[in-house]
């Protein structure tokens, strides 16, 4: 298996083809956009967060490469029902995974499929684009 086969695992291809939560939220409490001038990837992330800080709904829109779409899709699937504090922890863990740092992979669950992207530094931004937008949205 080549390094790129590792990056394009079937679960990533699946999320690229049939992205989850690829839609708008009617009245989001938080939203932000991300843009990657290298690929022209762009993503809009919308969240509906409860008063107690729980992410009741999260969705994304935009266009981009398979890595960025799959990452956005899996992010929304992972974060729905989590608290904003948990979302921040997952952001840190995901970021550490992609930048080759020591990380406890257990909380990341299915997100570990993105580990292979870390072999391609030029593509790390694609995988973290939606995550950065999510964090920016929550920071507002």
């Amino acid at each position, binding site marked *: 298996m*080549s390094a*790129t086969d590792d*990056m394009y695992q079937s679960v990533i291809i699946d999320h690229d083809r049939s992205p989850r939560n690829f839609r708008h939220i009617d009245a989001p409490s938080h939203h932000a956009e991300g843009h990657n001038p290298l*690929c022209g990837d762009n993503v809009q992330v919308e969240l509906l967060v409860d008063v107690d800080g729980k992410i009741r709904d999260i969705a994304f829109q935009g266009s981009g490469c398979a890595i960025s779409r799959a990452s956005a899709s899996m992010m929304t699937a992972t974060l729905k029902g989590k608290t904003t504090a948990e979302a921040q922890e997952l952001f840190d863990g995901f970021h550490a995974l992609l930048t080759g740092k020591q990380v406890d992979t257990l909380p990341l669950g299915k997100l570990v499929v993105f580990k292979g992207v870390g072999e391609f530094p030029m593509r790390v931004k694609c995988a973290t684009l939606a995550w950065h937008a999510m964090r920016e949205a929550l920071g507002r």
Partner: protein
Amino acid sequence: MKDLRAEFPILATLSRGKPLVYLDSAATAQKPQVVIDAISDFYSHGNANIHRGVYQLSERATLAWDAAREQVARFIGAPDVNEVVFVRGTTEAMNLVAHSFLPRAARPASRAPVVLVTEMEHHANIVPWQLAGATTIAIPVTDAGELDLDAAERMLAEGPSLLAVVHVSNTLGTINPIAQLCRMAHAHGVPVVVDGAQAAPHIPVNIAELGCDFYAFSSHKTFGPTGIGALWAKREHLEAMTPYQGGGDMIDLVTFERTTFAEVPRRFEAGTPHIAGAVGFGVALKWIMALDRPAVEAHEMQLMRTASEQLSAVPGLRLVGTAAQKAAVVAFTLDGAHPHDVASMLDGEGVCVRAGHHCTQPLHKRLGLSASVRASFAPFNNHGDVEALVKGMHKVRKVFA
């Protein structure tokens, strides 16, 4: 044609554990051993500053610098070596013309200048004009990737300050009819700046035959080092232009009251230049001129035609740019696959191609694309490289289809 692969040491390296298939010469060309040696030799045995020392080493460096300029002049058929200005590359050449020539070309002088460009221009032939305060308007490109010459005629008749046009498109490979465009522009009194960055490595360039006012190209695309290039300009233009960078080497007399400038072209070459780069540039151009150029051109064309044909057979693959007159560049898209994913997967096979907008965002917008994949060929490429590309694309399609 002689196999040139052995002259490029980088081709012996592996990429992701596979033999390197380099199909991105349009981004930057690889360097033959003679160029690498020339640079190394300059630093080992010939390094000194130019136009300064009276000692022998400085004299030798100055002679090497002058010889490189003569080589550039020979390469483009310029009769006057002093019409060649060394710059950092095509981008800097365009910025020089934008700052030093455009204000003189504006007509009427009271209004903001208008620069006529084309929809296929590289950002380096759009942004410098905008930064210099000009409005850019663009000659349209047809679906096949050719210039609409009727529109060009109409737009030239409106009297723009300047026509700035690419000789060979870096994305489409289209070879534009520069000589014809120059005749059309000059009939309306419009000077012509040509971006020759992609033409210089592929087709023989003769500025007298082209009839342009300015011609710019970069060393690194012509098998030389990065950070050096040339702007050729008609002497009358150079004489009339005000330098836009001041410093050492470009002056005649400096006082706190007033400074007079050196003769052209030195007045446009402020500061210590990339001397070793110019030496390598000169050797690279000499290397190109020593090739059997018709044979090289035929070889590149054959690779491009084979690649175009075999890539077209990949389901869902569409070629971008199918002009009748084309240099060895093949751009394409694949349904259902983003160009960056295509390039990453090819990278896994050791195949280096470019993905993205190739610094031609307006062209991609015109063609309704956000990005594309581009394979570009050099004299050292062979049919094995084409095979690796095509095989890689079939693999990509299997994953994404």
